[in-house]
């Protein structure tokens, strides 16, 4: 019986079947991993690259990063601060502005931004020390001059955190214990 099976596998049909099975399993896993990484749908297709090119600093819209744990997401008033003076805002050729943004302003509704770079709630991440340690936004969030809609340049998981922590504290054992201590992020 086993022998028959092996003969069948060795035969052409068998090979095809094995190939298809392997491929489908592989694509399944790949698709699964991809599923966890797709960037979410944003209320406004906000072009980061354009704003950065115009010279807007990251910290202008995300000021919290300098002082506290979370950098914050801009409210519509912040957008309006500039955009009400920009003719383009009211140009119907740019529906993202003339319809969506203006709409939010007129309805006086908050813009339901969807944060892209997220850590699970059992990880207590604070921006301040990372900025203080001389990191720049793009080190983790990628180069915003290249992307329209913000998305994660890499998988933000514990291994990724630890690699950086370890490499930066390699020479200082005290710092190393602090940066690799479970209690530094998990409590």
């Amino acid at each position: 019986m086993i022998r028959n099976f092996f003969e069948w596998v060795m035969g052409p049909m068998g090979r095809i079947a094995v190939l298809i099975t392997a491929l489908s399993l592989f694509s399944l896993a790949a698709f699964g991993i991809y599923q966890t990484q797709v960037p979410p749908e944003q209320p406004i297709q906000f072009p980061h690259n354009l704003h950065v090119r115009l010279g807007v600093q990251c910290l202008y819209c995300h000021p919290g990063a300098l002082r506290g744990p979370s950098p914050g997401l801009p409210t519509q008033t912040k957008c309006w601060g500039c955009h009400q003076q920009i003719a383009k805002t009211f140009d119907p050729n740019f529906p993202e502005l003339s319809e969506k943004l203006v709409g939010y302003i007129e309805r006086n509704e908050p813009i339901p931004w969807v944060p892209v770079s997220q850590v699970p709630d059992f990880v207590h991440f604070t921006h301040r020390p990372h900025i203080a340690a001389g990191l720049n936004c793009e080190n983790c969030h990628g180069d915003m001059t290249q992307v329209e809609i913000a998305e994660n340049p890499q998988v933000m998981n514990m291994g990724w955190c630890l690699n950086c922590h370890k490499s930066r504290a390699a020479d200082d054992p005290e710092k190393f214990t602090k940066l690799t201590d479970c209690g530094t992020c998990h409590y």
Partner: protein
Amino acid sequence: MSIDLNLVGAKGAIAQEAEGKWGMVIDQDVCTGCQACVAACAMENNLSFVGEEDAGYGRTQHWIRIERFWEGAYPEVKSTPFQPMLCQQCGSAPCEPVCPVFASVHSQSQDINLQVYNRCVGTRYCANNCPYQVRQFNYRDYHLDPIHANEVDGQLVYPFHNQFNPDVTVRRRGVMEKCTFCIQRIHKAEDTAKSQGREVVDGEMVPACAQACPSNAITFGRLDDPESLVSQMAHDERGFKHLEELNTMPRITYLKEG
């Protein structure tokens, strides 16, 4: 990397330093057993309340409980001084070596016992091995019980969730939890001090229980700093430590009555 973590575990098992970093002194002579610390801890650390039945069955989630015993019979009956019992943050903690997944580990930088919720698989071995019985287990998702929710247009809304402290993880079912010496406050204090380029000063950081205690029975601070109030009080002649004979090196000193 595994080697590092093994070292951490081993450090917990055979603690070199008997001194410790953070410590606490509880004066039983002035503790009035008013439960303010218990409530404060619950509010600070997102403890979930478990309801009458489970509470009576020994499933309360109190990270700190106040014990009292009875001696003698009426009229010479006496209640022993109220005794707040919380995680003693042992220097050589029995809970640490037994955890198979390093969920209960010794923090090298803070020198306290950590419980890493997201690593915990719930063997509850640590709780069995804790001589102080101060580790609590999440038997259910108490905070997600629909009886605490209101139905607003078809959706369950939990008003109490507004109050959750974002600095403390909300534990799900199946994980162990315990007093952390309010490590989130320690981090905040250290971060502030660092941003101002100084050390944390004595009394700058107090855990929720000590902060609330109306009779100032709880003192918290650095044991490795001989100047600090707590390390001076820890050498009071009334001072004793619970189950010291087990060589757990508890970081909490109790001052007995009288």
